[in-house]
């Protein structure tokens, strides 16, 4: 285990250095996301202002605003580019260079991304959490930050990231068949965005759809950690959803291994 860690640690380091090299790109990327987040904020504010009572489906306006910013924070934390990276490597054939090394294909992606994640978390988490707490304070007039809740949220976000990572890897393997993934990736992002509650809280959906969506792996991505942070999942309910997250991590980890062993036999390297 220790030996293995030593092999993959340089990938974490490399991921960090890569992020640092293209820091301007990173800043613009994050700025773009923050702008998107404000668009949702103004949209939902307009919806709440025009509604007759101040609450919709159990959400008050301040809660909704907290939800939007938490969603943004969580999406940033758990975002994974595995699908895109695999797609690109297959499209330009550079996958060969990873295959000639005695390392696990999936693990190199995981650790490289972890490096870039560490940079993102270090820079973003404090201002974002402070921002969310400030919004909560402004609307409710009291500080609601609990360190335990935050740690549970963080744990849940780690599971969510792992689910997202392995799910994206599995999806990326489609590139072995269709060669270029950009379009399929866009479609996937839209569907996952909807099913994971990024666009509309799952609580807003009809009862039947909600039940189904909550069991699907996508709710385990963004929705579960956000609900934990907001204190909407507590006690056994919270444990159950964290358990479900763990199940999905294992499921997609296993699936990615299986798909890899099938996909590698069908690899045809493009370009030279």
């Amino acid at each position, binding site marked *: 285990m220790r*030996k293995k860690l030593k092999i993959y640690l*340089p990938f974490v380091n490399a991921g960090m*250095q890569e992020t640092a090299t293209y820091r301007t790109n990173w800043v613009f990327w994050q700025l773009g996301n923050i702008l998107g987040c404000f668009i949702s904020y103004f949209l939902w504010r307009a919806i709440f202002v025009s509604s007759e009572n101040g609450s919709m489906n159990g959400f008050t306006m301040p809660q909704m605003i907290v939800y939007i910013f938490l969603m943004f924070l969580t999406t940033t934390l758990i975002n994974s580019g595995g699908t895109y990276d695999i797609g690109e490597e297959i499209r330009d054939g550079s996958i060969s*260079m990873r295959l*000639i090394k*005695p*390392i696990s294909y999936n693990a190199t992606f995981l650790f490289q991304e972890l490096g870039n994640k560490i940079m993102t978390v270090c820079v973003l988490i404090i201002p974002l959490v402070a921002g969310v707490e400030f919004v909560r304070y402004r609307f409710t007039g009291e500080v609601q930050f609990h360190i335990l809740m935050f740690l549970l949220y963080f744990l849940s976000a780690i599971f969510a990231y792992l689910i997202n990572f392995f799910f994206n890897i599995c999806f990326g393997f489609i590139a072995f068949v269709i060669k270029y993934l950009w379009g399929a990736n866009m479609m996937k992002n839209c569907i996952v965005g909807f099913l994971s509650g990024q666009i509309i809280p799952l609580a807003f959906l009809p009862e039947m759809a909600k039940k189904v969506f909550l069991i699907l792996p996508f709710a385990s991505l963004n929705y579960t950690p956000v609900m934990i942070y907001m204190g909407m999942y507590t006690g056994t309910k919270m444990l159950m959803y964290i358990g479900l997250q763990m199940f999905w991590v294992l499921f997609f980890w296993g699936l990615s291994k299986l798909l890899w062993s099938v996909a590698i036999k069908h690899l045809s390297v493009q370009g030279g």
Partner: protein
Amino acid sequence: MIEVNNLRKEFKKTIKEPGLKGSVKSLFHPKTEKIAAVKDISFDIADGEILGFIGPNGAGKSTVIKMLTGILTPTSGTCTINGKNPTHNRKNYVREIGVVFGQRTQLWWDLPLRETYGVLKEIYEVPDDKFKERMDFLNEVLELEDFITSPVRTLSLGQRMRADIAASLLHSPKVLFLDEPTIGLDVVVKHNIRNAIEYINKKENTTVILTTHDLADIEMLANRIVMIDKGSNVFDGTISELKSKYGQIRELNFDTNDSEAKERLVYAKHFKVNEEDVIVEQEGNMVKVRFDSSVIPVSDMLTYTLGKIKVNDISVKDADIEEIIARLYKHEVG
């Protein structure tokens, strides 16, 4: 060391009819066809040998190399390297090989070169003292010193190629695969790289498989050539065997004051051979005659020429390997 038996690789290819109509049609009813990039290739390589693996563009060289390095799974046939099958337990197998694809890099694009070696050290679990020793050695052979602290994206092609070769040798592999290691390099760098390969082969008895389009690489390095075309073996043997088998082409050069020498020398008629067997070119005083010495003996050729016109100076040249291979690629012989 390396045994390759009846290796075959097929790819599925979608056939699209021309134009927009064809595109729409192939969207709904894609027609696929199996294409064998490698049909049937067999060869053996002994321990410590340098094998020149050549063939025209699209002959299937890279596909074979990719199967030998465990990247692609063969459709049928087997390859055994060091007693191991590349596609079974890839991770274990690739520890013993080094690979350079001249058109790609295994170096970390955004990191200083030194860091890539640091990563490779951990990947291959090279102990600290061995690593230091190895880096000193590679530094000496490939002269990495000047750019080892620069990010890889800022290296010139020649520097990058040297760095790539060093990366493939860091773990002292038993087999080294070089796929066009001198592509796009200037003569000096080419020369350095050839020397480095030769030196490492001699010193560590590393088996080398080299594909290249630069036949000087082959002449300088390879003990043996395997030539393939359209996915099948064409030739397997040493360079001198290649020369004696196909290299009967000689070139006769002479200097004459006779401006109509070309018209006067009717070789084809005189020796009763086809026009293509003797090619005469004249440029001012210089006349160049290329002929097949297995059809017309050199002595007869000289006797006839000297008897026909007045010659100031004369020389006979051996066929060079480049020409033989060009003829093989164009299917003029074989």
